């Protein structure tokens, strides 16, 4: 997928001016947070579960090679195949080779962010294989030729009339005067459209929420059941997963499932939690004949042992973006790549390079809300700050920012000079304000005064006034 993150500022500005997007964001803002809060309040051990979840992921990452090899061996034992892919290119090629091996014409897909990361749909289409998204949100995005703007609610940027318009445009063999009175009507129509596609597909591709080392199973959670139809009906099931999805045991998986849905949608559990282990076995009534796992690295192994390793704990629940005021101001597309919000602001630079994603870790107030709701306690603001450090070391920040910082730092190191400078600045500004209380415009401060007044200072610094009052006391 193209990296448009260098364009973040322009995209964000456009998003702020996009009334329809703002309507959609306002409609959902707060809903995720309220549902999560209710779910957490109903489970007294939630905080302890967060610690347990973090510990499971930390342990796994400390022995990642071991658990990946155990997982792969158990997939093979169950009759499946594992494809180790270090890059997006390799992963795409592996998927296409499997599709070609069965002369696949159509491929159904469950929701997968890895598929976005490797831009699979465009690649398959260009090579004569038609992918069909079966998650309701992903389905409409495919109709609109759009990328998801959120990792679990991909069409969060759309309003209901956008859905209607897209459905009327795409499903032309249906009566033009049909009505979509409620949300359910949209769902019913999508279900009818998709049913034939499920049955016709040669290959089904799903993502994975977890890969279980001890059993070689992959786990997906969905609320629509589309993942189950995707992975059980076609002859071939391909699991697309990145390496950090592995966990040691079934028991660990259940611990993580307990925090996942609560953090994501505020559900105790997702409607469907589906385990798949290898292809159809003798005596099985259904299931694929062939089972493949595409195990993608794409930059993650380089994070192991680095200051960004904590990011690999992420279980993609989306709680960080659901609670992020910046995300809800600008929407997910502004971030310019696959993963938006706080987790994206840490992960994107790791996967595409800080020189292309520098805006993302900077576009945070460090309010800390994301870290406070993360089910695996990833210190997201700290990790964003580490990216700013990498950027600063490599002189990637604008020179004027650097120069201002250096000037300020010199004064901050020299208290006597600092006192004189602040005293002069404070007095000058207060005089210039002439009692008005605030400036509507200030030289060199267009960033501030574009949308805000700048309140005028009192006029005498604390240290000057304090010294004066101390002298008077003596």
């Amino acid at each position, binding site marked *: 997928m193209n990296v448009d993150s260098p364009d973040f500022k322009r995209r964000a500005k456009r998003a702020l001016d996009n009334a329809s997007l703002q309507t959609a964001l306002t409609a959902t803002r707060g809903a995720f947070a309220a549902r999560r809060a209710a779910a957490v309040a109903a489970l007294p051990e939630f905080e302890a579960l967060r610690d347990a979840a973090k510990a499971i992921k930390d342990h796994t990452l400390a022995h990642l090679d071991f658990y990946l090899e155990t997982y792969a061996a158990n997939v093979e034992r169950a009759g499946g195949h594992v494809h180790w892919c270090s890059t997006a290119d390799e992963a795409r090629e592996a998927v296409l080779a499997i599709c070609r091996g069965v002369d696949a014409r159509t491929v159904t897909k469950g929701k997968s962010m890895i598929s976005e990361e490797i831009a699979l749909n465009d690649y398959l289409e260009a090579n004569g294989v038609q992918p069909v998204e079966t998650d309701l949100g992903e389905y409409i995005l495919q109709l609109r030729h759009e990328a998801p703007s959120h990792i679990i609610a991909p069409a969060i940027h759309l309003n209901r009339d956008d859905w209607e318009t897209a459905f009327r445009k795409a499903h032309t063999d249906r009566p033009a005067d049909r009505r979509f009175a409620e949300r359910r009507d949209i769902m019913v129509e999508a279900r009818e459209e998709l049913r034939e596609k499920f049955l016709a597909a040669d290959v089904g591709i799903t993502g994975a929420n977890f890969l279980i080392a001890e059993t070689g199973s992959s786990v997906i959670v969905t609320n629509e059941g589309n993942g189950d139809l995707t992975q059980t009906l076609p002859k071939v099931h391909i699991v697309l997963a990145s390496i950090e999805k592995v966990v040691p045991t079934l028991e660990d998986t259940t611990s993580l499932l307990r925090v996942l849905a609560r953090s994501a949608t505020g559900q105790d559990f997702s409607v469907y939690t589906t385990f798949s282990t290898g292809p159809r076995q003798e005596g099985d009534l259904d299931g694929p004949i062939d089972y493949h796992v595409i195990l993608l690295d794409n930059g993650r192994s380089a994070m192991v042992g680095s200051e960004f390793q904590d990011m690999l704990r992420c279980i993609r629940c989306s709680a960080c973006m659901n609670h992020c*005021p910046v995300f809800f101001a600008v929407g997910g597309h502004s971030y310019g790549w696959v993963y938006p919000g706080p987790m994206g602001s840490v992960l994107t630079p790791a996967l595409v390079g800080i020189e292309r994603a520098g805006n993302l870790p900077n576009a945070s107030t460090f309010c800390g809300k994301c870290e406070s709701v993360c089910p695996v306690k990833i210190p997201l603001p700290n990790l964003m*700050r580490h990216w700013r450090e*990498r*950027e*600063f070391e490599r002189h990637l920040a604008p020179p004027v920012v650097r120069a201002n910082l250096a000037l300020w730092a010199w004064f901050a190191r020299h208290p006597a000079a600092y006192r004189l400078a602040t005293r002069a600045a404070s007095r000058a500004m207060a005089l210039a304000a002439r009692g008005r209380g605030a400036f509507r415009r200030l030289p060199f401060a267009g*960033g*501030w005064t574009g949308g805000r007044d700048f309140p005028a200072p009192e006029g005498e610094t*604390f*240290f000057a006034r304090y010294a004066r009052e101390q002298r008077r006391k003596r």
Partner: protein
Amino acid sequence: MPDSLSAQSPPLKSPRVALFVTCLVDLHRPSVGFAALRLLEAAGCRVEVPRAQTCCGQPAYNSGDRATARDLARRILDALAGYDYVVAPSGSCAGMLRHHLPHLFDDDPNTRAKADAFAARVHELVSFLVDVRGVTHVEARYEGNVTYHDSCSGLREMGVKAQARTLLASVDGLTLKEMNEPETCCGFGGTFSVKYPEISVRMASDKTRDAASSGADTLLAGDLGCLLNIAGRAAREGRDIRVRHVAEVLAGMTEELPPIGAPTRVAKPGEGRK
């Protein structure tokens, strides 16, 4: 219960406290520093203002300039050494000194140990008054409906939430009106406010809207950065809401000092803010 059985160690009778003024208070609103002095002294502290302090280093630290942040941190450790407590009228600066400063010395065990000992003595003003000094009541009067914004670092790094409301409840004439999402960031974020002004302004607008619809005529918070942002936006929008640092109200200083961003000259009848 006899004191000896109480879980907490008894507070020092008259602790020596260093006031960390913070650069914004020094430069922009010194009265907040004097309000802090007044409150700390009323709580039985012997307060000093070490002259060698400048800034907590966040502008450098959050811009990725770790070397400068570390250099400033060393100076802070020297300037503020030897006090029973270090108190700042800012959750953000206190959070920097308490939680971040020690990690600047992760590779230097000696300084790290010194920094840890220092960090343990750092407090945000309002929580210090309530949690450490046991203050439950202030002598102050403020006529108005007040809403309190939970500034991010104060709330999430320093645990300031109930303390501010406890003390505000003791102010004569003051009615507390909670706003929608009091814990949501106002969009200041230090350099974020000028690096991403449009996003920052949007967040500030959400805050002023929530404050206004709470029915409050006054917004208080414990961090001057947030307050400049909120007051600046409210002024641009022409909203009739007074914005002040919480310490000004708790110290009973509001008569001597106009709200943040409000005119200092005497308004003619019908002109400007109330």
